């Protein structure tokens, strides 16, 4: 069986940045396995701009951003396989994969980085009642049809969910000649970035109806109309608020789910909040030598943060390959409370971590004039004011190794949202 020091599952922005970082940290033997026909992942269908402001200090389109990282991979001569599906990962890091040329094959790895990304929540999972005709698409599927293949999925569109892809597709469909009638969002706030609401809806006079959902889909063969209704605080439709929209298309942008079926087969523990692996400061999962980064770990708002996180995973995987793991190190848990839904990572090893550690998370509601507070046990360590926080945007806290070193008996770190006095 062929052996690699590092196998990376997924050749999107996370997998590619992890590969570059691992190579730059001295790992020669790397294999990236990608199921699609090119590297770059979902960025290739994100033809709008707004990528790379943090990483490259300029505004790029998705394919441009992808091209720059792909170039870094090619410059370094890192090995990759396209059109290849990983079928299984075992706890002892044997990877079973398949493609047309090699058939089913196994490779063995010292370390594995999971970078499979995420999938969209489907109409079925949302349990929307009604008929099941053509014309119901997840926003990402519609994006692929329009941006990669040049086909329009419909003329008159209703969008459920205000995730970023839905907002971007509201603008794209409009620019390509369709009429987007309304965007309905179940929650009382948008799930997407503020800038996308302004640039994709407001600029095109597309109404956003918060606290609304689709309660019926009509049409036997093709969508003919959908009915939306306002929902109460229990998120159940309020009778009498129904509005019927004739349309031929319903796009769904109702959340992304990290795609962890392979992680599960390897025995990786998942966090039920993120649906991604539970990791420590080096982004290592509970399985020795299996790391995770990007949207498979938790759904990100900006690809720049994916790149940063993936670089960290690549560097730490390299260290693991060279030095093995430091199992006996003290572990401190980070507790997300009072509005903080989760943190990545969930565990910190004060003696092993880098000089600083970026802890990322999302909040569970819209918060105005609040602060992010960090406690070491019961002691307030840091309090940072945030005028506005929303679930659609990631927040972060930076932990300092030196500071943590001052608390040898620390048992827990708590991160919470507090109102400003």
């Amino acid at each position, binding site marked *: 069986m062929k052996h690699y020091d590092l196998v990376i599952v997924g050749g999107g922005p996370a997998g590619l940045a992890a590969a570059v970082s691992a190579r730059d940290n001295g790992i020669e033997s790397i294999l990236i396995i990608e*199921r699609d026909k090119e590297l770059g992942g979902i960025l290739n269908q994100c033809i709008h701009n707004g990528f790379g402001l943090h990483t490259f200090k300029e505004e790029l389109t998705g394919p441009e951003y992808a091209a720059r990282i792909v170039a870094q991979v090619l410059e370094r001569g890192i090995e990759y396989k396209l*059109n290849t*599906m990983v*079928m299984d990962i075992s706890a002892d890091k044997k990877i079973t994969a*398949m*493609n*047309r*040329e*090699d*058939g*089913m094959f196994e490779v063995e790895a010292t370390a594995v980085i999971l970078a499979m990304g995420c*999938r*969209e929540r*489907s*109409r*079925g*999972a949302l*349990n929307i*009642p*009604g*008929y*099941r*005709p*053509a014309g119901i*698409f*997840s926003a*990402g*599927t519609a994006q*692929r*049809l*329009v941006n*990669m*293949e*040049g*086909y*329009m*999925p*419909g*003329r008159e569109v209703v969008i459920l969910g205000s995730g970023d892809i839905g907002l971007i597709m509201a603008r794209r469909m409009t620019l*390509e*000649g*369709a009429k987007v009638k309304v965007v309905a969002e179940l929650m009382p706030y948008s799930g997407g970035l503020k800038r996308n609401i302004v640039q994709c809806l407001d600029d095109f006079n597309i109404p956003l109806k918060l606290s609304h959902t689709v*309660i*019926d*889909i*009509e049409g*036997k*063969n*093709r969508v003919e109309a959908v009915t939306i209704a306002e929902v109460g605080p229990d998120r159940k*439709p309020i009778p009498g608020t129904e509005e019927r929209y004739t349309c*031929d298309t319903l796009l769904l942008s109702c959340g992304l789910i990290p795609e962890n079926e392979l992680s599960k087969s390897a025995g990786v523990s998942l966090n039920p909040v993120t649906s991604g692996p539970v990791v420590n400061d080096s982004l290592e999962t509970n399985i020795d030598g299996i790391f995770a980064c990007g949207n498979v770990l938790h759904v990100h708002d900006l690809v720049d943060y994916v790149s940063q996180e993936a670089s960290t995973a690549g560097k730490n995987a390299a260290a693991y390959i060279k030095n093995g793991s430091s199992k006996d190190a003290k572990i401190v848990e980070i507790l997300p409370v009072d509005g903080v839904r989760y943190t990545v990572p969930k565990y910190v090893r004060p003696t092993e971590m880098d000089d600083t550690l970026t802890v990322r998370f999302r909040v569970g509601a819209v918060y105005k004039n609040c602060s992010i507070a960090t406690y070491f046990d019961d002691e307030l360590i840091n309090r940072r004011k945030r005028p506005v926080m929303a679930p659609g945007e990631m927040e972060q806290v930076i932990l300092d190794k030196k500071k943590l070193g001052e608390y040898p008996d620390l048992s827990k770190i708590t991160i919470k949202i507090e109102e400003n006095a």
Partner: protein
Amino acid sequence: MMYDVAIIGAGVIGSAIARELSRYQVNACVIEREEDVCCGTSKANSAIIHAGFDATPGTLKAKLNVRGNELMEQLSKDLDIPFKRNGSLVVCTKDQDRNGLNALLEKGEKNGVPGLRILEREELIALEPNLSDDVTCALLAPTGGIVCPFHMTMAFAENAYTNGVAFFLNTNVTSINKTDDKFVIKTTHTDTKQPETIEAKVVINAAGVYSDTFNNMVSSHKLHITARKGEYCLLDKDAGAHVSHTIFQLPSKMGKGVLVSPTVHGNLLVGPTAVDVEDKEAVNTTQEGLDSLAGTASLSVKNVPMRQVITSFAGLRAHEDGGDFVIGEAEDVKGFINAAGIESPGLSSAPAIGEMVAEMVRDMLFLQEKADFVPTRKGILHPETLTLEERNQLIKEQPAYGNIICRCEMITEGEILDAIHRPLGARSLDGVKRRTRAGMGRCQAGFCSPRTMEILEREVPMSIYDITKNGVDGAIVIGRNKEI
């Protein structure tokens, strides 16, 4: 076009009849208004092969269910139909009268169902640890089974086709007239509206919820079919092992209850509701229906992980006023054979209905058996069932089997090519889905739709604008960017 026999409807009943009839030297055709076989009640039901204890002794339902169940053993081998005798349990809760179970047991024994027995809670919980805490005892029917209704219908239809039966899809029957020695059937093409006439000596009415319409065109013995809607939720394969038997609820004055069952493909199925509807096209799910399922299911099975629902659907059962299947020649129309009112246990009875109706036609037309009848049919090859060596040999010979198209169900391009190019091959996304499961997994075709469309466009070949989800007027894409 003149045929000996014209069968209206390519659901499981029409297809089973066609297959059994194709044993004989007969010129037969099947007329179906949808673009594919298995598009009505046959595609949206509980996917159960009932043991046969439920129907009243002496009825067609009782007789044909037990016979159908018996036939499935050999048929599933001959026609490569995914079928498993997982056994069924009818559970009784502490608020219910256990005499109800005894009555079922007695009926079942009269119907000739083998192996029935009543289990007490202790033994039950060892079998099914997730039964609700209120369950006290249950009737075990070891011959109960689960089946893939799509593959069952297609297996019959493909085998009938291979044995010479013609299929007219997208063909809507608009009238049937009896002349002295034949029936004149007028049709229009669903898409082009092109009219055609098909003539036949014998007409078999297997039109599901519309079987009353066709009977009433020719017979003065009117039938009346009510469409009874059943809504279901299908759960992720992660939940597929929640129960291993099919769990029924003892009927009570609150209704027949719902079943919780593994499917033959490893998902978990919860349903159906039962609501009579006016509209025979109303296969929509409803908020009330879907909302009710979780609560009703919890009466028999605890902690059903409803958060893992991947899709929901509704089917319409054809309930005839008389309550039993209506099978046989219409009294006042010689040569017009009904297979009407086929509601539950219709799927289970289909093999026996096929046999029964084919024998009627044989006796009517004095048919001789065919020497070259092909009794077997191979389903679509699932590479997963092969050893690693076999699989790699296959990929070497046909690289398409190395290319995964549906990542959730791990379906390869090779399987999709097979689905398109086999007898009565797939022409729509749903057609591919029913044959291969591509698009039937947890992402519900988000990933594979564009890829499957590409394959259909190339292989059929067909225009991308003619590729539909489920037939005429259901195109997936409608034009080029900026050109709509």
